[in-house]
């Protein structure tokens, strides 16, 4: 069928099953937006391109589908960068479509020209510059394939303005022909046999899951393996939800602000089975003394992650979808009574963990952040997606919110991007209209994309926004208290900002909670009410997130109080 490039692009998106894009118009994408208008293609206009890309990211994290964002050339494209890097660090599939100046104008420092492929090369899995309309269908097909298969990640398509106006006889390709990429990741069965043998030999095994389990949708299989082994288990921040928080033997998440139990178990175990995680410095503590007594097994899709930060003893390459069912079946076929064998180690790990559970002290009628998050966790059912920003409130949410299932806890783990939360929560709600979405943010973070409150109002997107309002860039303040002589350099936020007025000005309801009793009397009602609302919760300024593994220390050298 004959059509122009802009129509062709939208046809490509329909072929990929895209229901919704997040985008912001501008000069070189005007033709595209004209076709969006004519075709009534659903586009959410955000307040800022950064909001659009984080929203697409939240959409993708909540569903596993590819999130799509559109921006104009130059400043529009540049505004996507933080969001692309955020998604890239956490292996989130995105297709980012940017307009580029017309082909003849490229390289001339034309108005609103920026080298998108150059800038995004280190933060994408792949990128394309499309100068001829004939290439467009193939490129879009490849981009979606690359973004969603293997280890997912963002892909950028930079499209020269003339492409949107050029005519094409449109046909969507059926096949993909990439010589250097298959998207398939078979697993080496022999390696799985080695793992089974190692488990048979082990006395103190620990299962350690990461975000890969969520991405590969293998949380059920992990749980089946745990049912069989009855050994203790833990997760990374990104893996939260792959194991249900109330499982017996689940020790909480590990790492810098992880639980005492999880970190001690890592240091004590003799077999550490790491599944879909990448040994980030936030998780290993002093890397040379990470899991010193353990044989380390690594189930991983990305060969470049093997031995990158931590030397492993057994690697099981391949998609977890291929390797974990094999492991489960082989364990089920084994004769060992694992439950009996590991029982005392399981109880011991739980007992150690119980010595220092996550906690907080109640004082007067102040609202303690831990109490706030625990309360929200109690109120929310399994049909809830909790999204965080970055800072202390993020860690408190990870500690006190009992995440039950995969894709129910969305956070910027790898890049730690303040300003991620609000747009990501918005994207998650649009992806899952039947779920309740609660954003836990900070008084610093919310300001970084606060313009998206208006997007919520304009589009009737019903999420609840809880601001853990401590009048400080809390995580910065915590480090300044602990390591910089209590110098609050550029971290105090005791200004006169009024989040209720901001919310109302943007078209939303705003509430303020200041007393502990209001967690009972006010909070549930607001959370259950219809329509987006901002809940500004005053908490004390000088609370620490504990425990904490200080930089350069071993996981068992936690500061506990």
């Amino acid at each position, binding site marked *: 069928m004959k059509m122009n490039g802009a129509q062709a692009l939208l046809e490509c998106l329909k072929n990929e099953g895209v229901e919704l894009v997040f985008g912001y118009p501008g000069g070189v994408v005007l033709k595209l937006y004209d076709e969006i208008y004519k075709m009534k293609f659903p586009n959410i206009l955000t307040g800022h391109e950064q909001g659009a890309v984080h929203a697409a990211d939240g959409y993708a994290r909540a569903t596993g589908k590819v999130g799509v964002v559109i921006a104009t050339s130059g400043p529009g494209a540049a505004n996507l960068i933080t969001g692309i890097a955020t998604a890239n660090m956490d292996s989130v599939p995105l297709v980012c479509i940017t307009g580029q100046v017309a082909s003849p104008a490229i390289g001339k420092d034309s108005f609103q020209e920026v080298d998108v*492929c150059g800038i995004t090369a*280190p933060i994408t899995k792949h990128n*394309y*510059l499309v100068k001829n309309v004939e290439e467009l269908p193939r490129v879009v097909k490849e981009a979606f394939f690359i973004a969603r298969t293997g280890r997912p990640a963002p892909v950028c398509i930079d499209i020269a303005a003339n492409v949107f106006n050029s005519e094409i006889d449109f046909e969507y390709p059926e096949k993909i022909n*990439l*010589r*250097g990429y298959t998207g398939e990741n078979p697993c080496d069965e022999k390696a799985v046999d080695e793992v089974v043998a190692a488990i048979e030999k082990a006395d103190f095994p620990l299962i350690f899951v990461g975000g890969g389990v969520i991405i590969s949708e293998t949380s059920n299989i992990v749980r089946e393996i745990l049912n069989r082994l009855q050994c203790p288990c833990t997760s990374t921040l990104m893996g939260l939800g792959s194991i249900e928080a109330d499982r017996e033997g689940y020790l909480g998440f590990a790492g810098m602000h992880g639980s005492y139990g999880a970190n001690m178990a890592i240091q004590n175990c003799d077999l550490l089975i790491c599944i879909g995680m990448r040994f980030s410095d936030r998780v290993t503590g002093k890397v040379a003394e990470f899991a010193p007594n353990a044989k380390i097994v690594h189930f991983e899709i990305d060969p*470049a992650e*093997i*031995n990158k930060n931590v030397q492993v003893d057994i690697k099981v390459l391949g998609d977890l979808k291929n390797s974990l069912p094999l492991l489960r079946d082989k364990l089920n076929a084994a004769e060992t009574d694992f439950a009996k064998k590991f029982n005392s180690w399981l109880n011991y790990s739980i007992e150690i963990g119980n010595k220092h559970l996550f906690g907080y002290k109640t004082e007067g009628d102040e609202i303690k952040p831990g109490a706030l998050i625990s309360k929200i966790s109690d109120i929310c059912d399994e049909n809830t997606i909790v999204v965080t920003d970055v800072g202390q409130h993020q860690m408190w949410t990870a500690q006190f919110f009992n995440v039950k299932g995969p894709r129910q806890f969305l956070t910027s783990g790898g890049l730690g991007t303040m300003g991620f939360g609000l747009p990501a929560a918005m994207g998650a709600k649009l992806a899952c209209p039947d779920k309740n979405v609660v954003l836990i943010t900070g008084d610093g973070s919310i300001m970084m994309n606060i313009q998206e409150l208006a997007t919520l109002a304009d589009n009737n997107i019903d999420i609840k926004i809880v601001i853990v309002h401590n009048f400080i860039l809390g995580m910065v303040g915590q480090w300044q208290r602990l390591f910089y002589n209590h110098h609050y350099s550029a971290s105090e936020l005791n200004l006169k900002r009024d989040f209720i007025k901001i919310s109302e000005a943007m078209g939303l309801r705003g509430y303020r909670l200041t007393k502990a009793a209001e967690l009972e009397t006010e909070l549930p009602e607001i959370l259950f009410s219809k329509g987006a609302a901002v809940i500004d919760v005053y908490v004390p300024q000088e609370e620490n997130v504990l425990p904490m593994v200080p930089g350069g220390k071993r996981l068992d050298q936690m500061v506990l109080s």
Partner: protein
Amino acid sequence: MKKFLLAVLVDNKPGVLTHVAGLISRRAFNIESISAGYTEEPSVTRINIVVSVESENELDQVVNQLGKLIDVIKIVNLSKAPSIERELVMIKVKASKETRADLVSIVDIFRAKIVDVTSENVIIELTGNQQKIDAICEVLSDYEIVEIARTGAIALSRGPIPVKKM
């Protein structure tokens, strides 16, 4: 530090070099030299990279990270296979009446060539492995070197099997 020569076959498409260069800088790999050129297949470019690494582990990282690039078709470590390695250098040296004879004899010893002569200087061309090229540069440093251009090393495997079939 150990050096390895990687033959990297990539799609001959725009942007490939950006991707390779972007990766090298992002991962802070130590690259001694890099060169690229057409091959027997018009759709394939061959990039020759000499990396310098501390350990096998670091070498694996370079190979695995490069392997993740979508437009990389194949990577072979030719330093670990029987192979022939060559680099080309051109050296412009000041040459007066007094030094010219010396220069000619150095050129002879190294089996290099003089490819250009003017009243003030000569251009010497030499093909060889890296040590040989380092050696001639070293010897010529006693004279006044005006400028040097080196291609970086390239290599082919010995025997009938090309890199793409390895």
